[in-house]
């Protein structure tokens, strides 16, 4: 008799578990939206929300059900991270690819890859003025990825007393080439002017820059 009672209680518990699992699953599926994220292999996928914490939802890829609302999604792989804001709508599916690409979130002169600046030092610029040059290019195009100086094109004007020193060269900012003219009168300040190679019209003037 005792064993039968235990069996009935266990049966009821299993039944309650079944009803709870199925009921809660159906309820959750009705009040949530689905998010499917694909990222690079080993990328850690994390989700957070305003005034809430953060949670890991997967590595490489993830499929989750979320309450409706705005979420901040990130994928991290080594030093690279990528963020995106997603809006989850009830009973709707969202699918996205999130590949970590950038390590610097805040654009700065340091996030631009410069090449050929040593030539400018050989032609008389100081390291401070090189920093000024990088800052000037950043002011011209803060989203630039690569800046390449054509080392064979660097020419310096003969200096005349009382006039500024001048350096002229071709510079490629991402995929566009410009004629660059740097003028300076001391060892810490420069003025960078960029000209369109075809029309020779001035497209940028940094005015005096001194870091």
């Amino acid at each position, binding site marked *: 008799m005792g064993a039968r009672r235990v069996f009935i209680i266990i049966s009821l518990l299993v039944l309650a578990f079944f009803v709870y699992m199925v009921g809660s699953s159906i309820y959750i599926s009705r009040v949530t939206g689905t998010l499917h994220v694909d990222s690079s292999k080993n990328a*850690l996928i994390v989700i957070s929300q305003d005034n809430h914490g953060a949670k890991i939802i997967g590595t490489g890829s993830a499929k989750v059900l979320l309450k409706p609302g705005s979420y901040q999604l990130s994928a991290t792989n080594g030093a690279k991270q990528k963020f995106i804001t997603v809006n989850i709508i009830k009973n709707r599916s969202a699918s996205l690819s999130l590949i970590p690409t950038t390590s610097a979130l805040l654009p700065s002169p340091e996030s631009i890859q410069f090449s050929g600046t040593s030539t400018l030092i050989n032609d008389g610029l100081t390291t401070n003025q090189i920093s000024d040059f990088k800052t000037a290019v950043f002011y011209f195009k803060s989203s630039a990825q690569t800046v390449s100086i054509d080392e064979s094109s660097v020419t310096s004007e003969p200096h005349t007393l009382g006039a500024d020193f001048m350096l002229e060269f071709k510079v490629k900012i991402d995929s566009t080439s410009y004629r660059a003219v740097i003028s300076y009168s001391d060892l810490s300040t420069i003025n960078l002017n960029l000209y369109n190679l075809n029309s020779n019209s001035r497209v940028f003037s940094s005015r005096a820059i001194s870091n």
Partner: protein
Amino acid sequence: MSSKFKLVLFWLGVIVSAFVIKTVVFRGGSYVGIPKAPALSGAISQSLASSGTKTIPRLNKDYLINSVKYFQPQSWAVASISLSKLPQNNAIVILHQVDGAYRIVLGPGTAFSTYDTYSLPVDVILYLKNSGVLIYQPTGGQ
């Protein structure tokens, strides 16, 4: 096969089918609920996540938020954080609100070069200067 054994098998089947139904209803996904937490803690934890680990830093367990200063009026935030085990060692993180959500754009760090801060608003730069964490550091030529 005894009737009791058949019943045990039946209830085991019920348990398994509960999980199968859940998987089918969730279309292979899993429900994720994010617990409530103080402002910026989610963004900070998320930004400090690193691949190769199975956990992310948690507020009050791994790190503390000592103070938060908002700018313009809440587009930017400068937070002072520290490790829970070393609360006297403060670091600064700068957060920017993009599409309604904050994310760390600079830090954590105890000092920043002026070079890193060109994209920051003037009042944030001034605050960092006054806090003594902004230093001049030319990068030189290459």
